[in-house]
């Protein structure tokens, strides 16, 4: 068994474990390459199906191609797609692009807050209706107790401290210093009422592993990752006001793999195009403690 296969086997095992243990399970789908690989792994684990809803937090500032790609894949793969949004902040223009708040606060409102309240079922969930192609208000308001997330340990410092099954308390807070032990294939699958568990099947994957797997499995991925003809491409996808592209002429998955192997980005963090990470020193860790992905 080669390294990619063993990563796949481990992720599948974790996904099945999560599906077995959590009655109210959801997978976060950011439309990016990692969570799309995660979704693909779910189809591996469940023999072609994704037996739980996929949740996307739409900040309303996503690059339009992302939304188009999302809806197409959801229809094609028959996904139970749920979308959440911080309507209030958007209506009141409490956003960074509207010039009212800084980047980190914007992330907090449009992502962390939206995620927290949509997971808890306190804010409306919009569910894709496969017969109309439109989104209807979801009647299910039950809080999700298991949340599958595509974070990788190599993305950035704070993520390397994650467990595969990582508890969050009522406020979605993460207590980094007091995490449960994980032994062999045994994870924390029991949780007190009111708390929930983040499940991280991709923890051991690297950026290169992701691209190699996309190539091996021929997973459809949004074209934003490829050279747009002007020698630029996105390496990490986010909201357009805060996501920069990198200099690259990689036009397809093969070329991205070659580029990564060349060591071109060896000293440049993958998320360096994301402006919010730079705004404060421990930015991402602070956000993550509060539930950011």
């Amino acid at each position, binding site marked *: *068994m*080669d*390294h*990619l*296969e*063993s990563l*796949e*086997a*481990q992720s*599948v*095992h974790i996904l*099945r*474990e999560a*599906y*077995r243990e959590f*009655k109210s399970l959801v997978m976060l789908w950011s439309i990016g390459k990692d969570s799309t690989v995660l979704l693909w792994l779910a*189809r*591996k*684990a*469940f*023999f*072609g*199906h994704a*037996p739980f809803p996929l949740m996307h937090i739409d900040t309303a500032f996503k690059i339009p191609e992302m939304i188009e790609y999302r809806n197409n894949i959801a229809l094609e793969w*028959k996904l139970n797609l749920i979308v959440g949004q911080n309507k209030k902040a958007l209506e009141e223009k409490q956003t960074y692009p509207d010039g009212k708040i800084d980047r980190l606060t914007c992330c907090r409102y449009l992502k962390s807050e939206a995620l927290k309240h949509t997971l808890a079922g306190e804010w409306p969930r919009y569910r894709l209706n496969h017969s109309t192609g439109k989104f209807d208000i979801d009647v299910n308001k039950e809080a999700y107790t298991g949340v599958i997330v595509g974070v990788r*340990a*190599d993305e950035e*410092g704070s993520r*390397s*401290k994650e*467990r595969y099954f990582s508890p969050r308390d009522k406020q979605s807070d993460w207590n*980094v*210093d007091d*995490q*449960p*032990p*994980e*032994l*062999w*294939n*045994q994870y*924390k699958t*029991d*949780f*007190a009422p009111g708390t929930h568990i983040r499940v991280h099947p991709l923890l051991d994957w*690297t950026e*290169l*592993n992701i691209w*190699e797997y996309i190539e091996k*499995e021929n997973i459809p991925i949004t074209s934003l990752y490829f050279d747009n003809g002007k020698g630029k491409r996105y390496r990490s996808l986010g909201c357009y006001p805060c996501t920069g592209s990198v200099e690259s002429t990689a036009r397809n998955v093969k070329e991205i793999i070659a580029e990564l*192997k060349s060591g071109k980005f*060896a*000293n440049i963090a993958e998320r360096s195009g994301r402006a919010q990470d730079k705004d404060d020193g*421990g930015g991402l860790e602070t956000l993550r403690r509060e539930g950011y992905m």
Partner: protein
Amino acid sequence: METKNLLKIVIVGHVDHGKSTIIGRLLADTGSLPNGKLEQVQENCRRNSKPFEYAFLLDALKNEQRQGITIDMARCFFKTANRNYMIIDAPGHIEFLKNMVTGAARADAALLVIDAHEGIQENSKRHGYILGMLGIKQVAVIINKFDLADYKKDVYENIVKEYSEFLKNIGVTASSFIPASGRFGDNIVKGSENISWYKGPSILEQLETFALKPDNLEKSFRMPVQDIYKFTEQNDERRIVAGTIETGSIKVGDDVVFLPSGKENRISSIEGFNSPVRKEIGAPYATGFTLATQIYINPGEIMCKKGDALPTVASRFHVNIFWMGKAPFIKGKKYKLKLAAARVNAELVDIINVLDASELSSIKGKKQLDRHDVGECIIETLKPIAFDFVTDIESTGRFVIVDNYEIAGGGIVIGKAEDESSLLKDHVQKREYSWERGLVTSSVRAGRNHHRGKFIVFTGDKDSGTREIAKNLEQGLFNLNLNVYYLGMSSLVGGLDSDMKAVIEDRDEHIRRIGELARIMTDAGLIFITVIDGADEYDLDKLKLLNSPNEILVVNVGENYYTKFSPDLNFPANTPVKEATEKIKGLMSASDIIPSYCI
């Protein structure tokens, strides 16, 4: 970094013995640091006028110097021409033992660091012991800070002697003992003039010889069943038994047996998504199978191959445990035990020995395991489970114990307990001893009722018609003026069981409550009827015991899968209701439960 093979190494040892320094060195000397990092950290030190330390590199990388100690295992990577490495840095502080354990459990090999100057300390031993229990066979002992020992050979020899004796006692063999200096770089990547008397490998050379986890294909086949899937709503009619193969391999057409239930079947197909059709598959793939015939099996059973050496099925076993819970591990409390895919309730029966962490000598007479204790115990599951001894097959020979939602202990199975008694038998004995009777005796009660109390359990596959028969039997007996009551399972789940998280998970407890309830109902003289879908032989044994001294009658509808238990009556699926009820009444009358005029 390329997707070559990745070897995971954990680095453990007493705090301040030099783990971070060695990692910093390894990263620096293999050229694995980001450009300019070394200079940047050195410059930082100069500006703050503190001496440069290789350990700072790690902190700079991980940016986690919040308390000045490594809080969690964090990972860093380096590579050689040969392969990629991931170093898991495990904290040495005792408060972070669970982090150390988490880090070590993920590793293929371990470096255990001992300070040459300070010598063997409490955690040098405890960590060594835990590496052994976690099943890490490749351990190199690094005797660090050799500069402080003037690179003297006798210092080396003394520590090697003392520590290898200790390792021998706990059944671990070190691959090598490497004298090194993290600070000066001796023997980290290559040998050193300072230690010319030492002929063994440097740390890096030793790492390069460590092997990746073996696939264990030649061992007996074991696949813990994680789940049984049927995605009918998606128009998928396959019924797939899914899990990760731990050891061995299997082919389409092979005969399999599920343990502990003992049910047998045959592999019909190997399933996958976007993968080529396979006729054979082995460890360590996560896969799924369809079977030749439909049977009821529970997640948590182990699928084995007929003809292979099979796991042991028992409920009492002999284990070694290390305890990490805040609350101690005590007798008389119910814990959840997770072994492979099985989850069962378990209790501590006896403590044979508790090891003193610092000396690893035994402490006699201890009644509980406290935090950070390591002990040899007997535990009992409330229902037999299938397991292997850890010396035969590791992955089905180790388990964790959950207390109050947290994994609080980890352990390995070292043997089966000889003792035949069980906690349940003890319980029933005690219960009967203290049973408080009214003035109406059971024979007086039976005399007036014209029948005796009886617990009738229907079981079988879900759609085999059990409920119709059970309800008709109730009505039939009622119309004959007998005292009879049918209890629907959902009435129980929604009420008496409503405090339970999930009946599937707490099945033991669910069954226990039915059994205790039956004991009361039959004592009240009732004919008490209920339906339990897919009850296995252990459930039935347990119900029988719990209902004792009163009587039970088991009716199985549909295929009879039982290998050890024999139901009192068996009907084929969808037997006409009338025919079935008549037969049951016949049997009840023949065994003097109800008067003969009733049939």
